[in-house]
């Protein structure tokens, strides 16, 4: 294995080291590991479990919505289903998805480090995640929660008869796993870059996860405290959100969205990072406007903190606040558009190969663009009055989170699968799955834009008969989407066990992670590399610069 020209060009490099997967086979060696790569896999297994649990809830929702009558589940169960779907997908899949798995695995490799800065905290974060997950599973077993993932007061504090406190505790706990991941990444990127790995030689994936980490550490604690206040208020009937005492439910909404809007960027920035790695590689071109891409990432992260009020245009906040939040929301579109244009410009005159990861990445760009543009509809105050709480909103954020983030996550899994497990996935199946997911996704969610524009409200288990046809499209699409998601679960697992051995750099990609064997050894690099050039040293002629060109062993 590993007989690759790229590696022969690396003088002094010790090859054929034992891979991190072979550093012990006991359960204990996994559960007590401090290796960032193994922790990434622990996270991957956990979030995959929650993804399919949340997906199961979505399946029942789509089954219910096949007909206008409430014939599959009753209204209360329906409320609990969409709440479970939202809570699980947001906090137990999307937030940790790319950072905790691909980020954990790749950031040290990409910056030429042997580990993250705080390996023990890294493992602790997975245990905290698991504990939070246990709370959510207990919540479901105890009968679920019906507030919606937003836990709006006063319903959650005064009226709901479901397990609000348990659910809130689960989310509270899992928040600290996010904080520890963010803290670890920030310090790792600041302090553990290899010699020569300057800030503007960092791969955009690292930039994206760095910006995400800033949001994680600054926004998540606000949610934790806010949800504690909800739980406390529910238990004691005293608090700052209770209108009977002069408290204000709007205060809850401000605090909740102060976290939950930046949380959207927690989900989508790492996805942008993944796309920025895949697209240059399969277009054999340098990323267009690298610096602008890095600044755009930071811009999105910073402005993203200032737009939360666009969730509250009809909640009774001041008109002037709404105008300011509307303008700021439009402002976020600028760095987002810069990124879309730059990916497109990267493709221009590239020598493009349409591989599995590339299909996912292109799907991401297209769906993110639609999701982003429809976000502008919702950021316009007058139009939002019409669209608030309709299926238009549902379609919009699913285009960002599912069309965007899940596509990119899957693209990233394919792209780095040979590095992670040391084996190749079946390319044709990957292409079929990517196309299936793209079709299934659009069939599921595009009709929801129309439904929303025509006035179908979200969160009801029954609807007016004139909405049925589009809902049938949507449910059919969901079935296709479900098959699309099961395919990679099957063939990636198969590839992990039976796939052909992967060379260290199957894509001819640049980046330090490709200079390690597949899978990498426990300490990543036998010799810490010295970086001499930027991250995307691709040449359109097809004759890729050997990956070793971006670094040479340290003297």
């Amino acid at each position, binding site marked *: 294995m590993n007989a690759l020209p790229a590696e022969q060009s690396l003088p002094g490099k010790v090859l054929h080291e034992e891979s991190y997967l072979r550093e012990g086979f006991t359960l204990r060696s996994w559960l007590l590991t401090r290796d960032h790569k193994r922790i990434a896999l622990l996270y991957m297994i956990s979030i995959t479990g929650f993804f399919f649990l949340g997906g199961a809830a979505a399946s029942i929702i789509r089954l219910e919505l096949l007909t206008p009558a409430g014939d599959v589940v009753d209204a209360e169960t329906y409320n609990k289903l969409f709440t479970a779907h939202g809570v699980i997908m947001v906090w137990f899949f999307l937030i940790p998805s790319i950072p905790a798995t691909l980020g954990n695995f790749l950031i040290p490799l990409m910056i030429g480090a042997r580990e993250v*800065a705080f*390996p023990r905290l890294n493992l602790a974060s997975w245990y905290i995640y698991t504990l939070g997950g246990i709370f959510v599973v207990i919540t479901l077993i105890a009968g679920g929660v019906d507030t919606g993932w937003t836990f709006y007061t006063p319903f959650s504090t005064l009226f709901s008869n479901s397990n609000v406190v348990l659910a809130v505790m689960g989310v509270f706990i899992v928040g600290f796993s996010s904080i520890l991941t963010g803290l*670890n990444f920030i310090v790792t990127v600041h302090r*553990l870059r290899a010699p020569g790995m300057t800030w503007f030689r960092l791969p955009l994936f690292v930039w994206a996860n760095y910006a995400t980490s800033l949001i994680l550490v600054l926004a998540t604690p*606000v949610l934790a405290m806010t949800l504690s206040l909800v739980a406390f208020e529910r238990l*004691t009937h*005293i608090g700052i959100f209770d209108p009977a005492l002069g408290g204000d439910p709007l205060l809850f909404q401000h605090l909740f969205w102060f976290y939950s809007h930046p949380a959207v960027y927690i989900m989508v920035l790492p996805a942008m990072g993944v796309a920025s790695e895949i697209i240059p590689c399969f277009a054999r071109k340098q990323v267009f406007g690298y610096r602008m891409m890095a600044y755009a990432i930071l811009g999105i992260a910073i402005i993203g903190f200032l737009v939360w009020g666009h969730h509250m245009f009809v909640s009774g906040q001041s008109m002037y606040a709404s105008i300011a939040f509307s303008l700021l929301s439009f402002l976020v579109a600028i760095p987002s558009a810069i990124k879309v244009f730059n990916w497109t410009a990267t493709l221009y005159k590239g020598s493009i190969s349409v591989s599995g990861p590339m299909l996912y990445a292109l799907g991401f760009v297209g769906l993110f663009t639609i999701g982003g543009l429809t976000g502008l509809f919702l950021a316009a105050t007058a139009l939002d009055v019409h669209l608030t709480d309709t299926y238009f909103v549902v379609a919009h954020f699913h285009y960002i989170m599912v069309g965007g983030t899940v596509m990119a996550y899957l693209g990233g899994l394919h792209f780095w699968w040979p590095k992670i497990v040391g084996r190749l996935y079946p390319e044709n199946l990957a292409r079929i799955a990517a196309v299936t997911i793209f079709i299934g996704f659009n069939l599921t969610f595009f009709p929801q834009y129309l439904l929303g524009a025509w006035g179908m409200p979200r969160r009801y288990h029954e609807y007016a008969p004139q909405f049925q046809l589009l809902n049938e499209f949507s449910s059919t699409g969901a079935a296709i989407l479900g098959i699309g998601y099961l395919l990679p679960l099957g063939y990636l697992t198969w590839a992990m066990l039976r796939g052909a051995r992967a060379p260290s750099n199957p894509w001819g990609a640049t980046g330090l992670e490709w200079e390690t064997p597949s899978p990498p050894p426990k300490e990543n690099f036998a010799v810490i590399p010295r970086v001499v050039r930027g991250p995307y040293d691709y040449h359109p002629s097809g004759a890729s610069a050997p990956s070793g060109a971006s670094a040479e062993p340290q003297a």
Partner: protein
Amino acid sequence: MSAPAEHFESAERQHQAAELGMWVFLATELMFFGPLFLGYAYGRWSFSEGFAAASRHTDVVIGTINTAVLLTSSLFVALGARAVKLDRGAAARVLLLCAAGLGAVFLVLKGLEYHDEWREHLVPWLDFRFARPHQHAAAMFYFLYFGMTGLHAVHLTIGIAVMVVFAVRLGSGPVARLENQIDMGALYWHFVDGIWVFLYPILYLVERHG
């Protein structure tokens, strides 16, 4: 300084990483307190008279003594960290124990204060009584009061435990191996102290002249 963990090239780098990590953690902590401060700002803005009336029922004498106690404890922590740098383990040990002791004094005084407030029916969820017309605003004030000082006390308790552990570990082995950790512990202690510096005026000193 002790040998660095294997993924750091030098002990100096590891120290820098730990320090940045601590600052990031403290930023997180500050945001964690944030909703309580925002809730306070909302209440004070909406019910300024009610909050002033409620604040006048706090025990400003104990509050002031506690402020002095906590600020002095921070001085001891700073001197203790300095003593570690000068390799004077015994002195550092005494200084850190003094700081932990002052922290404990703070908690005892705070406990007495809580006890009095309970007897005066100022605990919002335990038979709360407050003169009209400010009973609702006062309930909100004391909800925030117990929330903020309680969360602060939890942090202080952790700080005391950390200082005691340092003092015990300073009793044996080379002093320098703890320099990094004690620096981080000191940062945390000063942060907890700093939070109190904001809590004291907003909880105890609202329109006291009235």
